[in-house]
């Protein structure tokens, strides 16, 4: 029997606010243990939380980006559980009235755009970390991460493959990054996710029993975890077994998931409204500010590049995921709307190479959209060859001189004078008489070789298409 896989994701993203969510501690990663915490985030007796307003602003930004309705009044709740890295014995989170609800996100994929529902986005505080080390027995607690602001983005169970889940994750990551609200550093754990997976016989409407997988810390890990879990469930079902609702822990190193707890052992978090904090009010001013600052999101841009500009998926996604390249590409398009693919080629080849080599942003490597379009036009008018064009761009990076100057200085103008080209062609053919016989005997692809030799002889300046015609004519008439 064939099965459908049903996937829902809960993404936890650390927000890159300057200070923590409920105190004025600096929100930074990688500092010496227990140096970025205070009595408040360490949950000491008598201390009280005060909400960092930036956290609300960032969450609302994400909510708007994911087309959510924003609850103008929302509250914070306590989620009670015991763990050594949770100093208060409860996490301040949001339970029944999250900041943002009922949204969706468009996820472009090579075979079309998916619309994935977003159930809710809420704010909460991160917990600390347990430190295990051979230098001591037992575990120690590092509270630097306590109170780091998080948003939890909960999706609808709208994904049907690990590839879709990965595309969704990538889209969310790009949006977070584009909004400038999260560092999105997977290796620092700034994005983590829990994955809900169920399977059902193909065509069946009713969802199967789901299992939740925790501790997934990379996108590839998510793909493996989903595939593993789906296979596990399908195996159980096809052997006539029954799926039981459970929480499992994904082990990326082993590539396996392990039972954490079954439904019967599900924790009762005893949520109740946080009495130390007031209702969160999202003001008109905040909504207006967020709307005013909103710009085109990478997923929407990708869809535009695909649908309006007709770029191939790989080109479109490589450009759209990078703010600088997108801005550059759009500026070029503004000057020359008809040349999307050519512009894309230049950006993804020589310009990207320069970016990678220098480690700089596209705006810092000394090329403007005007320059690139000028270069493209010169190539198009056959004033210079593509090869020469690449040389002009490289020289421009180094010297900042105009294309015209560089072409003149380096003598890169393309030779389109027929007499001159004829002279070069004859010389090349005279040196390759044996190959001409081969050519005549059917090895017609040798024409390319001859053109290449002519290009070499002309130091790259010969007009290759003219040369090709001249060579063919010469061989048939004179050799």
């Amino acid at each position, binding site marked *: 029997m064939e099965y459908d896989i049903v996937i829902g994701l809960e993404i936890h993203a650390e927000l890159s606010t300057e200070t923590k969510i409920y105190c004025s501690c600096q929100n930074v990663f990688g500092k010496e243990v227990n140096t970025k915490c205070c009595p408040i985030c360490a949950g000491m007796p008598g201390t009280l939380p005060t909400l960092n307003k930036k956290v609300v602003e960032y969450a609302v930004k994400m909510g708007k980006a994911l087309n959510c309705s924003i609850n103008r009044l929302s509250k914070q709740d306590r989620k009670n559980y015991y763990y050594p890295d949770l100093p208060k*014995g409860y996490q301040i989170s949001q339970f029944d009235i999250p900041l943002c609800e009922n949204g969706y996100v468009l996820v472009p994929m090579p075979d079309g755009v998916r619309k994935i529902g977003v159930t809710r986005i809420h704010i909460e505080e991160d917990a600390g970390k347990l430190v295990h080390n051979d230098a001591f027995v037992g575990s120690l607690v590092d509270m630097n991460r306590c109170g780091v602001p998080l948003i939890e983005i909960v999706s609808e169970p709208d994904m049907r493959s690990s590839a879709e889940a990965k595309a969704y994750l990538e889209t969310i990551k790009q949006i977070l990054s584009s909004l400038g609200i999260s560092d999105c550093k997977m290796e620092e754990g700034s994005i983590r996710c829990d994955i809900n997976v169920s399977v059902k016989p193909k065509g069946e409407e009713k969802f199967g029993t789901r299992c939740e997988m925790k501790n997934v810390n990379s996108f590839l890990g998510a793909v493996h975890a989903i595939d593993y879990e789906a296979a596990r469930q399908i195996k159980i079902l096809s052997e006539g077994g029954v799926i039981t609702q459970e929480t499992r822990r994904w082990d990326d190193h082993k590539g396996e998931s392990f039972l954490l707890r079954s439904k019967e052992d599900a924790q009762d978090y005893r949520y109740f409204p946080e009495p130390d904090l007031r209702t969160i009010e999202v003001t008109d001013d905040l909504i207006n500010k967020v709307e005013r600052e909103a710009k085109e999101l990478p997923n929407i841009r990708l869809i535009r590049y695909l649908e309006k500009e007709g770029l191939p998926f790989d080109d479109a996604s490589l450009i759209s995921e990078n703010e600088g390249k997108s801005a550059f590409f759009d500026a070029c398009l503004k000057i020359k709307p008809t040349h999307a693919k050519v512009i894309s080629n230049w950006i993804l080849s020589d310009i990207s190479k320069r970016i990678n080599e220098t480690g700089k942003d596209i705006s810092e490597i000394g090329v403007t959209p005007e320059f690139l379009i000028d270069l493209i036009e010169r190539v198009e008018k056959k004033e210079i060859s593509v090869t020469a064009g690449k040389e002009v761009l490289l020289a421009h990076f180094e010297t900042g001189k105009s294309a015209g100057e560089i072409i003149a200085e380096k003598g890169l103008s393309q030779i389109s004078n027929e007499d001159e080209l004829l002279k070069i062609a004859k010389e090349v053919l005279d040196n390759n008489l044996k190959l001409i016989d081969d050519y005549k005997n059917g090895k017609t692809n040798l024409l390319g070789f001859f053109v290449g030799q002519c290009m070499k002889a002309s130091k790259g300046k010969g007009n290759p298409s003219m040369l090709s015609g001249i060579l063919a004519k010469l061989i048939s008439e004179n050799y």
Partner: protein
Amino acid sequence: MELYNKSASELSKMLRAKEVSAVEIADSVYKRIENVDDKVGAYLETNYEKAIKMAKKADEMIAEGKGTVMTGIPVAVKDNICVKGYKATCASKMLENFEPPYNAFVTENLIKAGAVITGKVNMDEFAMGSSTENSALKRTANPHDLSRVPGGSSGGSAAAVAAREAIVSLGSDTGGSIRQPASFCGVVGLKPTYSSVSRYGLVAFASSLDQIGPIGKTVADTAALYSVIAGKDSMDSTSLEANFNLSLASGGSLSGVKIGIPKQYFGDGVSAKVKELVMNAAKTLESAGATLVNVDLPGTDYALSAYYIISCAEASSNLSRYDGVKYGYRAENPKSLEELFVRSRSEGFGDEVKRRIMLGTFVLSSGYYDAYYKKAKLFQQKLKEEFKTAFRSCDMLLTPTSPDVAFRIGEIEDPLKMYASDICTVTVNLAGLPAVSVPVEGTKDNMPVGMQFIGKPFADAEILRVAGIYEDLIGGFKTQVKF
């Protein structure tokens, strides 16, 4: 008269007139502590050197003309309020050695005002109790009769003032914990409007009900201390500007003042003698110009249940942090993480605290939340409405503070009976209102009887004003103890 016997207002006048120094006052109070605290047991921690240092600073402030109403006045602080350099034990084995590295907002204000902190005083463990018998660290006696309890949970705060071991004190009131001990010890205690005093640095029992407040021998002293601790604090999100004007907390007359007498507070559970004394006081006020009106607060019957559900629910969460991991009591040699949690909490908390944590955990549990916590919160809204309605026909309410006078140590063993003694006070916390308890004229069994004025939100000054007029009408409170 010994300096320790004087009121803050008198001492403040003397200080400003340079008739006495703050150091001399602190010295007098400390001598008194040395002489009588063996009997009373109000203090958990004293520090003479620190007190004298603060007194010297107060003297400097006065010399520079920067003195305030509280400058140089010795204040005892309940042991759930953080004072840097002192432990904050909450009278619990759990925090027996816990010293907070920060001051409470009210502590900062006391320091700024030049007050002299005498030390930390006893209480029921984590402020849970009505007799201070739940202290894991010390027994405190009622200075009027050492065989009786001082009330609670701020028993140490009330006993210290009554025994003249402090001029004024700070307590905290979640369901009556300032007013009931004030009434048992024959002193004045104000539970301010919720949110008018920052809770930053008050070790939480039930966050939505807890409020720090002042205790004094006179209404004026109580008002003066309140004026120093009230105010908005950016560290407490629930704090609001109190807009308390000390000059409005005294003077004027009773003409036009309508005092509501809610019959539910004079029911069968209240001692006949207490009812009689409180009604006599009401008549005193009436004959001085106030109008008495009967008001109905039918929700009162459910208040105790709602109070214990809400306060225990919040407490169960607030006290989760005491897990043996970071600070406080830790069980020795736990064999697992779970055992560390379970044994640290089982060994570190006293019975009453554990009882309330279990109750609170139960009412928040899935399947019970709607039946208990949610219903209690709904009732709380209804009760607020009831008070609002009552305040349409009167300016304030007058009720007994406690159904009876201080009971004997060990007399009440049944926790439910103990809870029932909070019947007159818990509604005020549920509704977030201000209330001040003052001694009435006369005694029962030679013990003080208290009554409370309950005001509209932020009408702290007005109830203090009327309480002060009553104090004047009866020629001052007769609160001298026998030793």
